[in-house]
């Protein structure tokens, strides 16, 4: 089926070659073989020849070997490979052909610009590197409906793409009044063969910005394919010539979208109706992400509003929080199933409410990305909290099916609607998770029956996630993740984050670490292969130690992940709570950051203890940890675990109570919590010891710690 297509490409290439030959001998006849051949305004001779071959072409005679080389690349058998090579040959010939014209001052009538000089390339290239020009759209041919071509160009301009036009479409777009030129990043090049200026532009981008030199064909093709996010929209019937050029584009890694019924070649050639659909297909085919400079919502949006609370009196609309049924969910789907920027509100919206009213809410965010993983869904979902709080006049509390959102009177007065909530989430998810999320769609349900139905499904997902979290154990995974964020103030501190021991600030768990690494591969979260096991009980691995040595710059030789007495993990400064040895009780006390008192059995309050524990040093007997670590099966495994806790602030008891009781039950000590003292029971070692004896605390009969 594709054979006639390939044959056509090859025929086209021969035609362009013949054209170039004729033009060249013509020029030689008129100007002699030493006549110069160059584009005006470039340091790269004939750029396609410069970038893909090692031939130096500055004179008419010099172009001959380039054309012979091209001829050698055109082979008759209609195979895919031959078609692509014929395409490459077409580009070489077309660049020479165009250069012949430019060298003799033959220019195209306005508005066509022909060759785009280096000076413009440099200016625009900066924005391509910067991402504010996120890609390149090349539109060629003739649209059956000029209005459609015009609207496509407008769409491309809106996303910030660089647009090149060649063929009759130039006149069609011009007639529609669309602004073109450097300021609009839209270049009408000329008749169809002039499209090669889009290619020589891209090649020069590789030479200027990719650090490539003459004739580095392979790296150049890979630069074009991966860095220059270009695609071609071919409008109207395709003749031999346009197919040969299309093959050249494909050789350079630019997918070609045609509005004709062409046989599809995955990733290279696809058939697609012109207009909006083609715009979307092109952008998606290249994974182009528009840089969202300002989130388009009617309220101010940014981290400065994060701490804002909205009081009941100032609330216009409310969702969840006990008043209505509500949930939020992030799920991932294959790229083909998610339409980026699709935001749907199903059911009544804010204007349908009176002030102070409430609606059910089912907030479903569907994301897709080549590097997205199911495990990251929960990481993204927790981000909804921050995103909603970024809005001035929007407040978010809690998560999952306890979510609670308030919208202020002021926000509603400014025109805030539920769709804006979706817009905020779309924009931030894309920018915060740039590396793993390519598409985001948001659906907001506000009809009670829809929300209830959705909630049932969401609960299944939550349950699956929790089950998955339980199977994620330190023994089951091959690598942990580091966090070195705190090195800015504790220079040698490294957190090793494992499934069963979260970062000591309590904010980074293993999945966060994993996602963090995917999002910023050069960032503070790096995979730490466990390596050979040295002591499973204390939690010692060769890989961990090697990592810690390297990243503490040889100041910490390594550590035992589950021990506090022997080579414990270092503590930076942002630990949620501190574990401290109470020798008299043969156990440890735990005090949380919020505890303001100075009275504890070890004689020091949180802040005094923090002063001696922190700073990235190892202090056997003392350690900062995240609260949740107390519930882990690996909690102080080397010293005997949870039964070693003899004292805990009342506040922590309350916070962790049910979970702690559950964990105590699991280890066969259901009444352990009652045996642990707090500040209302004892604040001196003597009183503590007395209480523990009376209560029969297990620590007293455990192996002596010192």
């Amino acid at each position, binding site marked *: 089926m594709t054979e006639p297509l390939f044959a056509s490409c090859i025929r086209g290439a021969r035609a362009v070659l013949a054209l170039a030959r004729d033009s060249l001998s013509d020029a030689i006849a008129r100007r002699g073989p030493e006549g110069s051949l160059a584009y005006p305004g470039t340091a790269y001779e004939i750029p396609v020849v410069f970038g893909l071959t090692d031939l130096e072409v500055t004179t008419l005679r010099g172009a001959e070997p380039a054309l012979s080389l091209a001829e050698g690349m055109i082979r008759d058998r209609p195979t895919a490979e031959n078609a692509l090579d014929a395409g490459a040959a077409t580009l070489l010939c077309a660049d020479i052909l165009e250069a012949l014209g430019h060298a003799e001052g033959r220019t195209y009538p306005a508005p066509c610009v022909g060759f785009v000089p280096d000076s413009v390339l*440099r*200016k625009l*290239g*900066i*924005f*391509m*590197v*910067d*991402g504010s020009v996120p890609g390149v759209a090349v539109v060629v041919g003739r649209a059956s409906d000029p209005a459609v071509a015009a609207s496509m160009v407008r769409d491309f301009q809106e996303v910030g793409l660089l647009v090149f036009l060649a063929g009759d479409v130039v006149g069609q777009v011009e007639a529609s009044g669309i602004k073109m030129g450097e300021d609009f990043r839209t270049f009408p090049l000329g008749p169809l063969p002039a499209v090669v200026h889009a290619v020589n532009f891209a090649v020069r981008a590789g030479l*200027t*910005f*990719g*650090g490539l030199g003459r004739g580095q064909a392979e790296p150049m093709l890979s630069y074009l394919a991966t860095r220059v996010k270009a695609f071609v929209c071919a409008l109207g019937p395709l003749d031999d010539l346009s197919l040969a050029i299309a093959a050249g584009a494909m050789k350079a890694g630019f997918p070609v979208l045609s509005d004709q019924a062409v046989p599809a070649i995955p990733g290279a050639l696809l058939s697609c109706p012109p207009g909006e659909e083609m715009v979307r297909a092109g952008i998606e085919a290249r994974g182009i992400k528009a840089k969202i400079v300002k989130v388009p919502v009617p309220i101010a949006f940014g981290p400065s509003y994060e701490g804002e609370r909205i009081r009941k009196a100032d609330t216009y609309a409310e969702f969840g929080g006990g008043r209505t049924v509500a949930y939020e969910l992030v799920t991932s789907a294959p790229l083909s199933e998610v339409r980026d920027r699709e935001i749907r509100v199903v059911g009544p919206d804010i204007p349908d409410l009176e002030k102070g009213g409430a609606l059910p809410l089912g907030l479903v965010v569907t994301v897709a990305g080549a590097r997205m993983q199911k495990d990251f869904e929960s990481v993204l979902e927790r981000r909804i909290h921050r995103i909603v709080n970024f809005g001035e006049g929007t407040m978010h509390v809690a998560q999952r099916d306890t979510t609670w959102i308030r919208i202020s009177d002021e926000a509603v007065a400014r025109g805030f609607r539920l769709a804006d909530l979706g817009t905020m989430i779309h924009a931030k998810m894309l920018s915060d998770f740039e590396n793993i999320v390519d598409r985001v769609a948001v659906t907001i349900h506000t009809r009670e029956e829809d929300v209830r139905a959705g909630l049932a499904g969401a609960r299944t997902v939550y349950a699956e996630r929790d089950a998955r979290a339980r199977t994620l154990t330190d023994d089951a995974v091959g690598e942990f993740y580091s966090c*070195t964020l705190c*090195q*800015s103030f504790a*220079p040698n501190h490294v957190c090793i984050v494992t499934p069963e021991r979260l970062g000591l600030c309590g904010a980074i768990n293993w999945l966060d670490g994993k996602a963090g690494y995917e999002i*910023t591969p*050069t*960032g*503070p979260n790096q995979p730490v292969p466990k390596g050979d096991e040295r002591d499973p009980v204390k939690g010692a691995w060769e890989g961990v130690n090697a990592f810690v040595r390297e990243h503490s*710059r*040889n100041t910490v030789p390594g550590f035992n992940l589950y021990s506090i007495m022997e080579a414990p993990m270092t503590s930076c400064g942002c630990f949620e709570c501190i574990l401290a040895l109470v020798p008299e009780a043969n156990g440890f006390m735990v005090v949380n950051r919020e505890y303001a008192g100075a009275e504890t059995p070890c004689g020091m309050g949180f802040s005094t203890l923090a002063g001696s524990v922190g700073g990235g040093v190892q202090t056997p007997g003392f350690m900062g940890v995240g609260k949740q670590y107390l519930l882990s099966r690996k909690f102080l495994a080397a010293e005997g675990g949870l039964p070693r806790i003899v004292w805990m602030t009342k506040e922590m008891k309350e916070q962790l109570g049910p979970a702690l009781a559950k964990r105590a039950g699991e280890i066969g000590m259901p009444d352990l919590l009652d045996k642990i003292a707090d500040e209302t029971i004892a604040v001196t070692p003597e009183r503590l010891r007395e209480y523990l004896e009376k209560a029969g605390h297990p620590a007293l009969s455990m192996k002596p710690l010192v």
Partner: protein
Amino acid sequence: MTVANPQQTFPGRIMEVTLPAGEGGRSVSVGGQTALPLLPEGERPNAAAIGIEIRTGDEDLPPSLSHAFGGKGTDPAVLAGNLVEESGAQFLFLSLAGCHPDLGGHAVSRGAGIVRDVLQAVPCPAIVGGCGEEETDALLFPAVAEAAQRPVFLSYADEKNYRLVAGAALAYGHGVVAWSPIDINMAKQANLLLGDIGVPPHRVLIDPLTGGLGYGLEYTYSIVERIRLAGLSGDAALARPILCHLGDSWKAREALDSAEESWGDVIARGRRWEEATAWACLAAGADLLVCRHPDNVRTLRGMVGAPWR
């Protein structure tokens, strides 16, 4: 009995970076060393380079500087020519502070024009700094990169704008000063990210943020030392020359305040505040120092060539 050789040898070498000069000027190379400063061992092919800063815009000069600049001209090109010549600065750091909306609000084109004029007047290597205001700098760097008719370094690229600055540098063949806020990991990340974009390593300098004496210098000292140790120990992304910009020492009250009589003459004091900051940076391992006071350039230049450097 054998006594262990206390000399430390490192597996790494700091990359040598050259700041090119204009016609008739002398280019400056820094880096290339295999050891810490102030120690007898190792190779140290290049001494630290001392440069001088010129700032555009309507800032009030500290008394010590207005004294030193008196009669040397107000036009940036003239002032730069005079100061570089008199002080013997090896490179010029031109800060386009005047483009900041609060410090003159020069149009971007004017900033670019100043760069062109100054580069013509002064043949020594140059680093061009933005104004520090994000939106303005986003326009300024591309314009400066285009206006500079010979390769300079653009200062600075940070976590937010590195793509733009790198793009501007690549487009016209300039170098980049990679800035990080006293954070070794961010310094490393900045270099990795610039590398990903395609900025060649020999066109990157590390600016770790230099706090003035009494205002964070000790943090800078420690970070410079740690970056250097990491680089020498084999971390290629950190094996780059370090630039310490002493500008913050001129923000210290001690360097400015003429009201405190017991502190001594503010004109001498300001200069010495910068000088003290400079010595610490050199001892920590800095490869380039940016001074504002011409006398300090002279003093430091005289000493970096000392045999113990």
